[in-house]
């Protein structure tokens, strides 16, 4: 078992959505600890609330009740502006469809989160090159997303996610739009980020092969958690 202190502490978390006059509960009394440098996979059927849970941990959605502490900060008490600032420094995002800005080069896309940090241009350049080196795409930094393959775009997205050295990385179906080889490359890269750089990754996936790379798989079903450690970890 991983004995490190939890970097994410979730307590009695509730979240529901309103659809007209109907209230649909999505997460029901969720409590969960995620340790530093842990690779956690969230699985479950569609509509089980895994993306909602990921969004709440990443501070892009608000819980109805309960607390989420990330790196000791209770993000449920933060205002929208404080959350935005917190996200910029503490969370790296990897999405299924890469979500790169098409009119910006790979370099500029990776540089985006750094624009909020107050680093000088030279410092930003160094950080971006380092991040692109980690994902083996330093030689493609001047390419636009449209000039890159899906796998390469996802690696640029990962570089953008790690460039600020965030507390946690959240990845929502990062291999969902990739072929098998590219998916393996991305997963391998994520594994390396955990093992070599000590990153904490929370991965939402439907893919059992992707989940297999994680230390711990959490199953969500109808808003309720069911944790299962990986036997081969």
């Amino acid at each position, binding site marked *: 078992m991983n004995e490190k202190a939890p970097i994410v502490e979730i307590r009695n978390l509730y979240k529901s959505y309103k659809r007209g006059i109907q209230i649909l509960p999505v997460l029901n009394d969720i409590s969960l600890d995620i340790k530093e440098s842990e690779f956690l996979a969230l699985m479950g059927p569609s509509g089980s609330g895994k*993306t*909602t849970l990921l*969004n709440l941990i*990443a501070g*892009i*959605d608000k819980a109805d009740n309960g607390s989420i502490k990330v790196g000791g900060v209770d993000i449920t008490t933060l205002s929208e*502006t404080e959350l*935005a*600032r*917190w*996200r*910029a*420094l503490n969370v790296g*995002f990897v*999405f*299924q*469809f890469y*979500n790169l*800005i098409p009119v910006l080069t790979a370099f500029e896309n990776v540089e*985006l*989160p750094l624009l*909020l940090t107050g680093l000088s241009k030279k410092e930003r350049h160094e950080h971006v090159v380092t991040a692109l080196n980690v994902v083996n795409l330093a030689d493609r930094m001047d390419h636009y997303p449209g000039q890159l393959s899906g796998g390469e775009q996802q690696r640029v997205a990962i570089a*953008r996610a790690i460039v600020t050295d965030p507390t946690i990385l959240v990845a929502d179906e990062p291999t969902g*739009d990739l072929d098998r080889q590219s998916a393996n490359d991305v997963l391998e890269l994520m594994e390396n980020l955990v093992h070599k750089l000590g990153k904490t990754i929370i991965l939402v996936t439907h893919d059992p092969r992707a989940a297999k790379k994680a230390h711990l798989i959490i199953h969500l079903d109808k808003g309720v958690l069911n944790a299962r450690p990986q036997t081969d970890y």
Partner: protein
Amino acid sequence: MLLRFLAFGLLRTVISTWYLGVEQSSATRLVTRNAISLVFPLPLSYKEKIRQIEGVKNVSYGTWFGGIYIDEKHFFANYAVEPSTYLEIYPEIVIPDDEKEIFFHNRKAAVAGRILVEKYGWNIGDIITLKGTIYPGKWDFVLQGVYTGRDENVDETAFIFHWAYLNETLKQTAPGRADKVGWYMIEITNPDLAADVSLRIDKSFKNSLAETLTETEKSFMLSFIAMTEAIVIAIQLVSFVIIFIIMAVVANTMSMTARERIGEYAIFKTLGFGGLHISGLIFGESLFITMLGATLGIVLTFPAAKIFSKALSIYFPVFNVTPDTIYMDIGVSFLVAFVAAVFPTWRAIQIRIADGLRRIG
């Protein structure tokens, strides 16, 4: 967008041209006309009485001739004046000294504006024949001078000749109409005296057969414009409609752009960019689109105004794009950019990140 800004610029130029006479009017000039209407003349004998009034520096007079050159389509302003005093009071009308000398001493002489002379290819010494409408008959004039404007806003399409020539002819053909002038042009010693001098002049002719109405040159010009106010209002309304159309087009473009980019804005928000950054992006884009259209529109307004000016020189002797029109163009483009960006910005800021991200893919 470009064409709309061009149309707006041209219409605003038409409006400013309409008011050009007012802007050009001098604060030290008064105009005295018949109190009933400009159509009714005033006796020539008033000149000396006016000259003796305190505060009056110089007096001249003129009469609208309304002659036709070739046919009605070739309209240009033509009027009879007392040359020496007229040119003293209107120093913005510049005639070379030698031509002025001949003009002063030849009663059948006339001077015409540079644009008019160029338009008809007249030369000094040419006989110009006008067909009288108010004063029937064929009137021959010898072109003895070409005047130019001291500045670019002076009308260079008028035709001026000796009032004495008109009067002498009338003495023979229609003695009842002789020794009468259309209006007096008065130069005063101090612009602050305008109201007092006007009152004094009008008081002098109170209860006479031809009571006078004296006003500043500016008021006189404005009273002319008032006659065509409906046209000016219509042009102004059209220019406002154009602003509204520009606003609608930009607002629609920005709305569509923002809708297409809602996913991108969600990404920016996810990465930690706040409402201020998102607003900056949308307002910046709106401003860029509008300013691009406005800049090209403004640049093209100048050659378009030149073409317009040539084609309609009879109606708009001076048709220059004024700095005010440019400032208005720029002001409108800022206003349009701002208004068009308000709703998309509000929408982009309000949308939840999770909802925005769902639009991608």
